[in-house]
């Protein structure tokens, strides 16, 4: 399929208290693309991600996911297509056991118990956590929690995977493991992070957000090696590039 799967046109967003967080964002993402979203604290990354999921509605402009235009009625359908992994896995894992949690989404999709079981096992195997199935989330380590949070989303088999700071609480080994998992996904991915090395590893395209607008959009290796651009956005060169450039 060649049509665009995520399309934002001139999106503005204002919070009820009056702060305008997004000021005219437009971009298109095609099938299978993986896109990194970077920017300073408070630049509007998280707000942007919540628009794609339909949790927040743009004040003006339009969001189109697949062939659905985001409005109050299409929100539910859109949430089936867009899976969001939130920053804090404790927010994401709200059911009493790992199994119940991963099964939560598929059950809401109306699948049969048999099918749900299959999906849960498949998803947990993908992230290497099948043996944690019956544990309660508060017995897991942070790395395990993040992995299970990702499993809970991929069990729904969304078209688009959206992640907010996926590696922020992980130790280097777990982080590396997560990067390998992400590389193997053929989903369309949108990842917001300050971990520029992760973006460089996983994404082929990168967007820089500055004060609610897109400051740059292009191939990740090009954007992430542009020292001036990064430094004006409170970022710095990825560690892996610092010695070379």
């Amino acid at each position, binding site marked *: 399929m060649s049509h665009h799967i995520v399309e934002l046109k001139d999106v503005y967003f204002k919070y009820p208290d009056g702060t305008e967080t997004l000021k005219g964002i437009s971009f298109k993402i095609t099938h299978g693309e993986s896109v990194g979203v970077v920017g300073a604290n408070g630049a509007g990354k998280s707000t942007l991600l*919540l628009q794609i*999921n339909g*949790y927040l509605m743009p004040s003006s402009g339009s969001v189109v996911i697949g062939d659905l235009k985001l409005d109050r009625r299409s929100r*539910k359908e859109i*949430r*089936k297509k*867009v*899976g*969001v992994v*939130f920053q*804090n896995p*404790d*927010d*994401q*894992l*709200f*059911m*009493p*056991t790992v*199994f*119940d949690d991963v*099964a*939560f*989404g598929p*059950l*809401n*999709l109306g699948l049969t*118990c048999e099918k*749900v*079981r299959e999906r*849960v096992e498949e998803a947990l195997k993908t992230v290497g956590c099948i043996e944690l199935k019956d544990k*309660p*989330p*508060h017995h897991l380590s942070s790395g395990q929690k993040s992995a299970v949070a990702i499993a*809970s*989303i991929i069990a*729904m088999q969304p078209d688009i995977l959206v992640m907010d700071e996926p590696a922020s609480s992980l130790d280097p080994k777990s982080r590396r493991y997560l990067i390998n998992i992400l590389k193997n996904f053929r989903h369309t991915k949108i990842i917001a992070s300050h971990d520029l090395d992760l973006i460089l590893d996983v994404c082929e395209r990168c967007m820089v957000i500055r004060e609610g607008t897109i400051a740059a959009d292009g191939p990740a290796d090009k954007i992430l090696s542009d020292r001036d651009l990064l430094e004006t956005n409170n970022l710095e060169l990825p560690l892996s590039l610092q010695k070379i450039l």
Partner: protein
Amino acid sequence: MPTFDKEYFNLGYLDALSYKDTFVHRLDPGIKVIATFLFVLTVVSFPKYELSGLLPFFFFPVLFVSSGDIPAKFILKKILLVSPFALFVGIFNPFLDRDIMYSFYGINISAGWISFLSIFIKYVLTISAALLLIATTSFPGVCYGLQKLGLPEIFVSQLLFLYRYIFVLAEETMKIVRARDMRSFGRTGKGLKTFINLISVLFIRTVEKSERIYRAMLSRGFDGKIRSAKKYSISGVDIIFILTTLALLYLFRKYDIAWQLGNLAKKII
């Protein structure tokens, strides 16, 4: 404040116990909830001067402790912890109810003391039953059992959330308390005013957290109903367990076994 840390780990300990794998742990949670419920009802149904008739009921807690591999000391401590409550309920009985009921070799025992003791025994039995249910059944299992007994779904999901987030909240509190202690030297900084601030911060964080959780639920298609794919199946062992329990409860309620054993012993002597 070391006590807070300690309480937190205590909570975790009770929870950890419930994930053991013994005969008692494997029983169907619904059956266990029903059995506990019946047990409590039967114990409470005894008249207020009953003593000997209650004693055989200790069979159940003892059975659960021994076959469930639960440290008895831990349970006893928990019972003692709540016991002032029961003491206050019954403490005035000996003063109000002064009719003499028994007299042993010149020592008169008033009906008040008997009913006080009876209340206390009932309390120990019911609390230990509840504690042992929690210690031998995972909390989600208990919720499932309650649902089976007809508890509305909304309460069940509230309980499930309570279980999931009490640990998160306790940890958060522990961190705040530690941060306060680290910067309050001696007495200053531990007053009521700081405490109020601390509680309000915690409250606001909780509200924010609940919003984030709700967001995560929505993004996975939450529509007001929490479904479960888990199948609990009642096995033959469960049936035998509940039938035996019923039979014993009936037997203990109908016949005063301890009294009769005593009489038998007297005759032999």
